[in-house]
């Protein structure tokens, strides 16, 4: 088939992507070296002032810490819970079809709706969580889960895990379909215990899809914005202010477009390092095996 004609079909997509992604990326890069203000003039070139300012600002370090904590904890929790639920629903149990179907619901629920629901459930005056915990005698007084800096991030993280573990469970279940039955049976005949069977037969098959899921979930969690914005707006006392929230506030609430751009660049640099570290870890794991 005529090859030139084929490549012409790429052009519309490439032109649009250059306009809506390529140009904005370059512009953000450029902005990060200026003191431009949103809605103002182009700003002056200030070299690395924005970056130096970011490294010195406690707000940046704090937001980085919050983001890393959120990412590590939610991804670890959803991977573990998702894997467990996936393995459970692979067993020959009555009603597993129903539960498998149910898994799609948290996944399909819009993030903002999920955040709003949990905000209402965590409400310190009439929330269902406090009511439940008090009526079962676990707590005596109503707590303000989202209003207390020591519990807010955990509460937001729990709401996030509730929605995202289902994706890991779905991927685990799909991965388990690829485990050859004969191999399982052969291992059983050879006298391997359930744990040994899991380690030698099941685990190697579901590891690759789970690794990909883990990498993608980490990248997603590092970008976290919606759920925090709806539940706490970064508060109380900045205890849930992630990098994305910080960039948003700097660039749009305070109109420091240049500084905001430099923070966005920094968070991308960290994402890149994460991706690099992950692919290395995966390769080392592959070499050991």
């Amino acid at each position, binding site marked *: 088939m005529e090859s030139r004609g084929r490549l012409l079909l790429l052009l519309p997509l490439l032109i649009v992507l250059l306009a809506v992604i390529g140009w904005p990326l370059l512009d953000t890069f450029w902005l990060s070296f200026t003191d431009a203000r949103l809605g103002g003039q182009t700003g002056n070139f200030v070299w690395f002032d924005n970056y130096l300012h970011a490294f010195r600002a406690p707000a940046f370090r704090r937001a980085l810490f919050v983001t890393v904590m959120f990412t590590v904890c939610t991804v670890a929790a959803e991977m573990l819970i998702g894997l467990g639920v996936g393995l459970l629903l692979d067993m020959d149990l009555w009603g597993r079809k129903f539960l498998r179907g149910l898994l799609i619901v948290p996944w399909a629920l819009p993030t903002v709706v999920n955040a709003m629901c949990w905000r209402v459930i965590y409400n310190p005056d009439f929330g269902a969580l406090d009511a439940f915990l008090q009526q079962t005698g676990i707590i005596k007084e109503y707590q303000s889960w989202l209003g207390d800096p020591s519990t807010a991030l955990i509460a937001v993280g729990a709401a996030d895990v509730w929605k995202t573990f289902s994706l890991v469970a779905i991927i685990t279940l799909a991965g388990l379909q690829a485990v050859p039955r004969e191999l399982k049976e052969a291992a059983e005949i050879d006298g391997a215990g359930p744990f040994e069977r899991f380690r030698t037969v099941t685990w190697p098959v579901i590891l690759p899809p789970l690794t990909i899921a883990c990498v993608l979930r980490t990248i997603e969690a590092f970008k976290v914005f919606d759920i925090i914005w709806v539940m706490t707006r970064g508060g109380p006392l900045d205890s849930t202010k992630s990098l994305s929230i910080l960039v948003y506030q700097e660039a749009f609430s305070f109109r420091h477009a240049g500084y905001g751009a430099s923070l966005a660049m920094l968070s991308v640099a960290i*994402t890149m390092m994460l991706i690099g570290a992950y692919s290395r870890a995966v390769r080392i794991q592959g070499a050991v095996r």
Partner: protein
Amino acid sequence: MTARQRIGRIAAYAAMILVAVVILAPLGWIVVMSISPTVDLTTVPLRWIPSALDFERYERLLTLAHNSDGEVFLYALRNTCWVAAGTTVIAFLLAIPAAWVFSRARHVRWLLYLIVGTYMLPPLMFVVPLYRILASFSLLNSPWALMVADSTIVLPFTTWFLKSGFDNIPIEIEEAGAIDGGRLWKILWDITLPLAKPLIGTTLLFSALIVWDEFLYAILFTSDSRAQTLTVVIANLASGRVSDFGLLAAAGVIAALPPVAVGLVLQRSIVSGLTSGGVKG
């Protein structure tokens, strides 16, 4: 069955019940809240079972009276549908031909990886320049702005997704068409596209779901009911001083119904899509 196996099965069923309760309890409670009278929801101890059924919030949200909650909500629903449809059409027109080329022409694959790479960048990387571009075209606070902005998320995703789908359609079918003397576009239209129909349908629904969820661009680029989407209205309701939790819950139920229904109906193709490369967060 040995005693040990029996204990194992009981534990497994207990775990299953736990999972079901954890998933269903918050969902069920939101539905119950949306039809409970307000007094039930603002008492301590909380009333779990409503004293009466109250569908008044749904009525309020779904009537178009001037200056009412319903007006804001219904306009947001319209805007969301409008943006979802528009973005999906853009994705359809641009991503299908490109994905087909990426599937057939190996030497331009690197471009595809570049495009997919941008999908991993936080939207905040694009937001300031996009804001300035849209402002200079006076497009802020219009559904068009959101269609353009959402394309930055939807286009890389659909291109990747469709490409892995086209990979499953053997190139020989197209080559046979070429030998018979068909023109390129005719082969695509008559042979490849009909075969790819289910895949294209799933991909477009996926992109509609992404737009339905989108929040960051929507709060940045819209300011009133001419363009505000459902996610923005719900976020505003949640953070406002609304004392009627039932109203919030009802808004959440309505906003969640379409994506959840799509999820349940298309479960099979969504699951295979999720596991074949593209993973939506």
